[in-house]
């Protein structure tokens, strides 16, 4: 019979652990397991939902982009710069020694073989996420002829590599492939 006297300061078994200690620990532990189980849906709901993840890839028609021109496409609600480089811009990019670069990469590493005139990068400055200028006609392309971020003055060259300013990395190259000579699938 469990009586009211069966309380914390008496009725100790030989090994010093009472039945009630075990029940207490088991009950509180299980409540802890339950709390973790409840936390899972309450937290995962914040992660991207299925409809957001479904926007994972886009097809872009690049047939209308003349050499020297660039467009902005929207992928996952972020701008992607697609630029048709002129031969002199390719030459300028290839002329830079890698040792001068903050984030050393060649133009060839940043384009697809056979499509080295197509520079496709995220239009998100690697400093703090602004959209650099340089895609539109007449926009400031900065001292290196690529892109120029108006927020804090990061300047990118014609391979969209960081050359000057606070940004730490080159403009990121997204995963993409040419599904035909005039269509790029991004994502």
């Amino acid at each position: 019979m469990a009586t009211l006297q069966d309380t914390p300061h008496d009725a100790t078994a030989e090994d010093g652990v009472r039945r009630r200690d075990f029940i207490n620990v088991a009950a509180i532990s299980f409540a802890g397991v339950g709390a973790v189980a409840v936390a899972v849906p309450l937290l995962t709901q914040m992660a991207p939902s299925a409809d957001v993840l479904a926007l994972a890839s886009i097809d872009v028609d690049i047939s209308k982009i003349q050499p020297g021109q660039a467009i902005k496409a929207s992928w996952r609600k972020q701008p992607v710069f697609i630029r048709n480089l002129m031969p002199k811009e390719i030459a300028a990019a290839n002329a830079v020694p890698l040792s001068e670069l903050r984030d050393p990469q060649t133009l060839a590493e940043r384009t697809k073989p056979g499509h080295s005139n197509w520079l496709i990068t995220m239009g998100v400055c690697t400093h703090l996420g602004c959209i650099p200028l340089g895609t539109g006609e007449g926009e400031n392309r900065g001292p290196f002829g690529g892109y120029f971020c108006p927020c804090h003055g990061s300047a990118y060259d014609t391979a969209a590599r960081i050359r000057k300013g606070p940004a730490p990395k080159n403009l990121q190259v997204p995963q993409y492939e040419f599904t035909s000579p005039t269509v790029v699938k991004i994502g």
Partner: protein
Amino acid sequence: MSFGWAQEYQPKSGFMRWIDQRMPLPRLVYGAVGGGYPVPRNLNYFWNFGILSGLMLTVQIVTGIVLAMHYYATADGAFDSVEHIMRDVNAGWLLRYSHANGASFFFVAVYIHIFRGLYFGSYKAPRELVWMLGLVIYLLMMATAFMGYVLPWGQMSYWGAQVITGFFSAFPVVGEPLRIFLLGGYAPDQAALNRFFSLHYLLPFVIAGVVILHIWSLHIPGSGNPTGVDVKTEKDTLPFHPFYTAKDGFGVGVFLILYMGVTFFWPDYLGHADNYIPANPLATPAHIVPEWYFWPFYAILRSFTVDFILAAKLWGVLAMFSSILLLFFLPWLDTSPVRSGNYRPVFKRFFWLLVADVFVLGYVGGAEISPVNIALGQFASAYYFAHFLIILPLISKLERPLPLPNSISESVLHGEAEESAPYGLATSGPVTAE
């Protein structure tokens, strides 16, 4: 805080002492739900439902805040955003079903809590204010639940909003302008939806505030008990912790099993299929009823079919509001000094008749309108008012209650000296029997 023998808070560590001296929050918690709150030792499981109501309020606030991260209150997009929650948001289906069924289980807990109070006379002196604050919480809950039901902007949402706000148009002269003012338009639309969302988010926190007052006013005299006899000595009480935290913990486990059982296996059982049709201002569903927890009141509303001095519509609305406002006067309608129904043989019978009557009202409120149902609803509505206004005062005067026990400990422990010793003060030898 209520009895002289309540244990005083003793900080277990230097850190807690430091906190306690500067801001006695640990002391407050200890005195409210810890070892410092002496509770009658004879509470039965009906006394779990206060904690369970508080639990459901918490569940509703937590799931509601999370749902509000995905819901948008626009007449064009609200319905789609709810479907978005159901299909696209991670675990969104679980959160929404938990919230929708949580409302029902909140009302289940509160209704049992209210009828516990009615049976055991919890509304009587010195706890009148506890009872009245509880009724305020209940009214706020009804407003919150109604506005929450409008938010999915399905057919039942829309026409529920139309009908409920239509109550206000029953009042002469000011009625129709008042209704238009409340809706911000001539029919429920963007303005109404947006303000309902705003208030639906606000009111639960108002409820939480009134809950604090409810508990505060309860803890002045301390909890009631099934005998209705006042606590007299330390023998009559046990510390809230660990005795009632454990008992409430068990109740919480059982209640959550039922709640989650419905949420997982019959998530739409308590809802209406019509609410999965987007709101259409040009077509009313064939059978429009509120959620089950409003059915008894809906039955009272529909029981008035003939104009008598005032319009039938106005009578219905007045009767429906009166059926709750009446309860504010209950402490003075029931004048019997005996609290517990256990010692009131006549009251006990009429109490169960009232329970049956409310179930009949609930049935009528949820059923289709037919001549039989209307007659049944009229009879049950009349009986509801007669119970409180005629039967209860008469019983209080005429009834001869059973003899009350001298004390709580005597009623439960039959005077066994050892068992009735105050908790922790047993003086006899070590416990042997196990």
